[in-house]
């Protein structure tokens, strides 16, 4: 039983912070035991919720039913072709991160499910994708952005962990606005992360080391800057 398994309970009841959740979801993608345990503990939590049942106000029902009348249900996931399997795994890990960074995105989307195509895959394979790769000591980091999709993705390799109590934060350099947060990077050496926000107006992306939880604006000089070609 390693440390990371021990997070299953806190994960099942949403008691991890974003960084820990990202790390644990990467683990979940590879650990069937933890997936089974999380599923069981979520069943257990659902029973716990029974102790709190409260009848909602009747008007809420009308509002909910009015809401759904104007929204189209998403299609079910369709199994990707076999040949995409390997990419699918990569993408699944990326998708886990997307879920975390994109607040309010897909809770139903479990990281071990293959989804096609994810934002990361779409950006990485876009016809107008442009990449900048930097060597950061032993590590390499590549930022790829697609103007047509308006999104950017960072792929890291051998990235050292941030200093104790710190996180890597991603930024877009937006003319007229300065550095705009594009989310926090989960702690993991190799990963694919979709930057939060619109990449089309940005002239570049950067990484800084920030206190845990991130900052409103960079508080340290960037460890890497990725210029976007116009």
């Amino acid at each position, binding site marked *: 039983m390693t440390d990371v398994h*021990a*997070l*299953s*309970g*806190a994960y*099942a*009841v*949403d*008691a*991890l*912070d974003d960084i820990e959740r990202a790390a644990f979801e990467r683990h979940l993608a590879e650990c069937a035991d933890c*997936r*089974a345990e999380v*599923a*069981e*503990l*979520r*069943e*257990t*939590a*659902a*029973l*716990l*919720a*029974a*102790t*709190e*049942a*409260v*009848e*909602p*106000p009747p008007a*809420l*029902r009308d*509002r*909910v*039913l009015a*809401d*759904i*009348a104007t*929204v*189209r*249900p*998403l*299609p*079910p*996931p369709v199994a990707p072709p076999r040949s995409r399997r390997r990419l699918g795994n990569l993408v699944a890990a990326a998708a886990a991160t997307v879920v975390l960074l994109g*607040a*309010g995105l*897909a*809770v*139903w*989307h*479990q990281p071990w499910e293959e989804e096609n195509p994810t934002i990361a895959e779409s950006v990485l394979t876009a016809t107008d994708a442009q990449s900048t790769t930097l060597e950061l000591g032993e590590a390499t980091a590549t930022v790829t952005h697609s103007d047509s999709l308006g999104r950017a993705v960072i792929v890291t390799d051998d990235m050292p962990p941030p200093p104790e109590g710190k996180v890597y934060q991603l930024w877009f350099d937006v003319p007229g606005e300065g550095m705009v947060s594009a989310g926090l990077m989960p702690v993991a050496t190799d990963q694919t992360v979709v930057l939060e926000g619109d990449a089309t107006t940005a002239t570049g992306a950067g990484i800084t080391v920030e206190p845990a939880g991130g900052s409103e604006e960079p508080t340290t000089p960037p460890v890497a800057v990725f210029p976007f070609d116009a």
Partner: protein
Amino acid sequence: MEHLRPVAGAPSPDDGASGPDLADLLRRSGRGDEAAFAALYDASAARVYGLAVRVVRDPAQAEEVTQESFLEIWRTAGRFDPARGSALSWLLTITHRKAVDRVRSAEASSRRETTYEQRNQPVAHDATAEAAEASMEARRVRGALANLTEVQREAVSLAYLGGYTHTEVATMLDLPVGTAKTRIRDGMIRLRDALGVGS
């Protein structure tokens, strides 16, 4: 109505005395069946709303969380996979995450702790079929909770029903950082076993 349930053998709504089959209602909702969705709402709204109220405390915000959750449930109903767990667990996982997102956003935190005690009316036990079912379940769960150590019970309750992170729970319970997550897991596992969830 025996069925395979690979990850979880939780007593599900459909083997309860009265509840409709939530999984079937979800499947039909995924195909755009609004009547099925209305039935799903009627069979689960007290638990969804109750959980939202418990976590966010403010009834107005709990209504918003409930509304957002059901909209998400409708949109993504086609992605529910009964092989991965029960429909109720799926609904409440969505709800809980939304509630937690709400309280952890800076804007909401200042409005927390408002008027829960005064305005939260526990459901009348005979109000609906769902409420009756939930109240039976609740009795069983309270019995199981009594088997936890006090620290486990508080850790589980602060984390799931309070919406706090394990680090916050550690501080609240004066535990060394890093041990609260173990208490939460131990407590949840003991509850799982006492309630007969899983194999």
